[in-house]
Every structure is written in structure tokens, then in C-alpha cells.
């Protein structure tokens, strides 16, 4: 590399989207790379959906449109009923600023090409900067043999649509993340529920974040009505 300041290649800083999670941006150089695909992994009750919803609500405040795919066929009515308990979620966001799309019916008779087409049709119509697929692991259970190829194509296309996507992954309490997804994503964030001295404590760990000098190690988190997930003891 030349030392000549004119000839030296300037490092092109990645555009980043703020996470909406207090304390997390500071751990990952200001936010998620844009575009990218980030896996948020955790067992039941660790706050994956809350994490994803906060990401979309953060986008609305910045004029960035959100698209929320559910793979569980959960009607908007029920998702909103629980999510409305958080102060950060304004119900008016849903409809225009955050569009809700149900992939559940497509998973009754799973076909990876049709699923990919349906995802892309929604993206092309909505043109979001922020996407959530919650949870992606349901798709793995349905597609089986085609799952890896599907994940590779999905990840590639989500980035080419110029969005940063959060995919959530449900794991058993003894697992860190779904291994078949890890190679297809640019970042992995673990939400961990740990039993310590008779109490359950929650942690967040950034395991991988491509192009980012991230803080490693488990950080304590709390889930509050005001902010959703909050990183309590980030060591920065």
C-alpha cells in the first residue's frame, strides 16, 4: 500500500443503522452495517421479538421504512396486543411505516422458490430499509433439504435489496445459535438466559459482526416497558 496520501486507498466506512437498543450501538461502531443480515439468537423468553420490534421502531423515527415478516401465522392483532405493552411501540407505525407480512400460509406447503418470490414481492412493493424475519428457524423445519441453499439465496438477495435484516432464531437453552444459519449471516447476536445462584439473568453477546470492531463478551441486559431491551453493563 502506498504512503502517498493521494494514491492510498481510502477506507470506505460502512453505512450503519442504529439498533434502537440502548448500549448496543456503542458495542458495534454505531450500528448494524447497511446492508447486512443479522441473526438474533436465543431460547424462548429471551426477548428476540422485542429486540426486532425495537429495531423497526427505531427506523421509523429516522424515516426508514420497516417490513416485518412473521413465519408463525400470528395475526397482527395478537402480535400488537402484546407488543403494545412497550412504550416505544406506537400502534400508528403499523400499516405505513412498518408493514406486517405473514409467510405462515406459504409454509403449509413449503417451496423454497415460492417463499423467496413472496419475500421479494413484499420487499419490492414496500421498499424497506429495515426488515425482520421472525423467526427464521421455522422455515428450516419446513424446507429441510433445501434450507442451506435457501438461506444463501435469501441472505444475498436481502442485501441486494438494500436493507438491513434481522432474522431471529429460536434455539434450545443449551444451544448458542442455529448452526445452519450462521454461515449465511453477517452478524450474530446472542440473547442468553442464564440461571445463576437461583436467579435467571439475561445477557447479550455480539458473537460476530462483519466489518466491525465489536465489543466481545456477555453484557447484562434488562427488558423494560420504556425501552424494551437495554444493555446494562457494556464495558466500553
Amino acid at each position, binding site marked *: 500500500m502506498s504512503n502517498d496520501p493521494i494514491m492510498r486507498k*481510502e477506507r*470506505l466506512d460502512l453505512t450503519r443503522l442504529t439498533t434502537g437498543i440502548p448500549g448496543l450501538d456503542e458495542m458495534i461502531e454505531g450500528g448494524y452495517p*447497511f446492508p447486512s443480515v443479522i441473526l438474533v439468537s436465543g431460547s424462548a423468553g429471551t426477548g428476540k421479538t422485542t429486540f426486532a420490534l425495537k429495531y423497526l421502531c427505531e427506523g421509523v423515527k*429516522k*424515516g426508514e*421504512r420497516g417490513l416485518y415478516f412473521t413465519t408463525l401465522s400470528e395475526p397482527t392483532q395478537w402480535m400488537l396486543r402484546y407488543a403494545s405493552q412497550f412504550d416505544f411501540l406506537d400502534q400508528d407505525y403499523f400499516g405505513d411505516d412498518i408493514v406486517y407480512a405473514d409467510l405462515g400460509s406459504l409454509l403449509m406447503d413449503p417451496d423454497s422458490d415460492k417463499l423467496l418470490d413472496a419475500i421479494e414481492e413484499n420487499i*419490492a412493493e414496500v421498499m424497506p430499509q429495515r426488515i425482520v424475519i421472525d423467526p427464521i428457524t421455522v422455515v428450516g423445519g419446513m424446507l429441510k433439504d433445501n434450507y442451506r441453499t435457501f438461506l444463501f439465496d435469501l441472505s444475498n*438477495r436481502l442485501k441486494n*435489496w*438494500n436493507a438491513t435484516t434481522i432474522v431471529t432464531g429460536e434455539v434450545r437453552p443449551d444451544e448458542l445459535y442455529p448452526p445452519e444459519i450462521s454461515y449465511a449471516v453477517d452478524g450474530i447476536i446472542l440473547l442468553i438466559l442464564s440461571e445463576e445462584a437461583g436467579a435467571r439473568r439475561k445477557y447479550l453477546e455480539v458473537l460476530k459482526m462483519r466489518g466491525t470492531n465489536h465489543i466481545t463478551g456477555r453484557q447484562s441486559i434488562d427488558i423494560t416497558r420504556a425501552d424494551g431491551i437495554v444493555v446494562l453493563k457494556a464495558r466500553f
Partner: protein
Amino acid sequence: MDGGVVLIDVPSTQFVRVNLVLLKGLMEDRGRQGIFISVDRPHQYMVHLMRMHQISLGDVTFIDVISRFSSDRKGGEARVGFVDGPFHIDSLPSALEESSKGQGSGFLPLEDCGFAMIDNIAALQIYNRNPAVELFINNFILTAKSHGSMLVPMVLDKSRHESLYDSAQKLSDVEIKVEKGLSFATRNPSLEFSGNGVITEADKNRGEY
């Protein structure tokens, strides 16, 4: 304005939306045909968006410089020429010129092109040193200007690519700033180049685009 360089300052997260608005405005509202050079993603994505938003593909020729690096199986039928890769991009204007003269293998009559767009100029910095990108911009604009009334919208994020923006600014005839309010403008995309100015949510509400 009939021809010239329009520098458009846009948050980088909104480049795709703005490009779609520009294509619609130039082709449908202004009746122009032109070329769209894909650097940041394969051309099929803009083809998909144009179909979805019912914008005719008949008046645009894509020059795709990234597909061969993308391992993307996505389909999308359009008139397209492929370039080997985004490296040595400074040679592209002369390749377009050659093509226009019928000396190459292309099919682009540049005299008939009413616009030329690049998605996106900043992405060229991933593959080329800054002097090469600046040389490309300069030569690209010279090539465009030498072919009648071609309009060259240059979409850049000033806050992120200051040096590149400054270079483009010296070559531009009109400068427009697009602010956060554009976010949902693609519901009814159209754009009017009326001169220097700042396009804001208020403008959108007034129906200027």
C-alpha cells in the same frame, strides 16, 4: 433543463428509492430513454422494482458491472450489457463511446440517450482508488455531455462521501438535496428538475414531487 449534470444529495439508505423516482420521472414524465449502470447490485433488482411499480422497461438499457461477481441467481428480463467487473472503471466511458460508434459489441446509440445514471457512484470506491473513481466521473460526464442533451443525475450522500461529492459538485450544473421526507415518495414517484433547491417533506406535501 434539457441536459447537464444534476447532483443529488441523498441519505445512502435511500439511494434505491431515489433512483426509482428518477427513472420514473425521466422516462414517463420526460419521455426520455437512457442507460442505467449497475454497480452496487445486479441490474435484476431494479428490473424487479420497475415491474412492481409499473415503470416500462422499454426505454432503459442496463449496463451491469457487478453481476459476474455476485453469484446471484435472480431472474429479470431487460435489455442489458455486461461488463467484466467494477475494477478499472475509468475505462468504462471510452467503452461506452466505442460502443456508440459501432466499433465494439454493444448496442448503445448514445446520441439517443436522454439520461445516464449510475447505481451507485460511491460503491465504485470499494473496487477502485479514489483518483480512478474521480477520473471516471470526469470522463463519464464529458462523454455524456458530448452526446447532445443527456441528463446525468448523480446520486451521492454528501455526509458520507464528502470528497467524492466535492469532486462531483465541481462538474454539476444543478444541485438538489433530498431530505428524510422522501422516504415514502415512491408511492407516487415523479420528480421535477426546476433548478437549485432543497426538496423536503414540505415540498412533497405541496405536490412538487
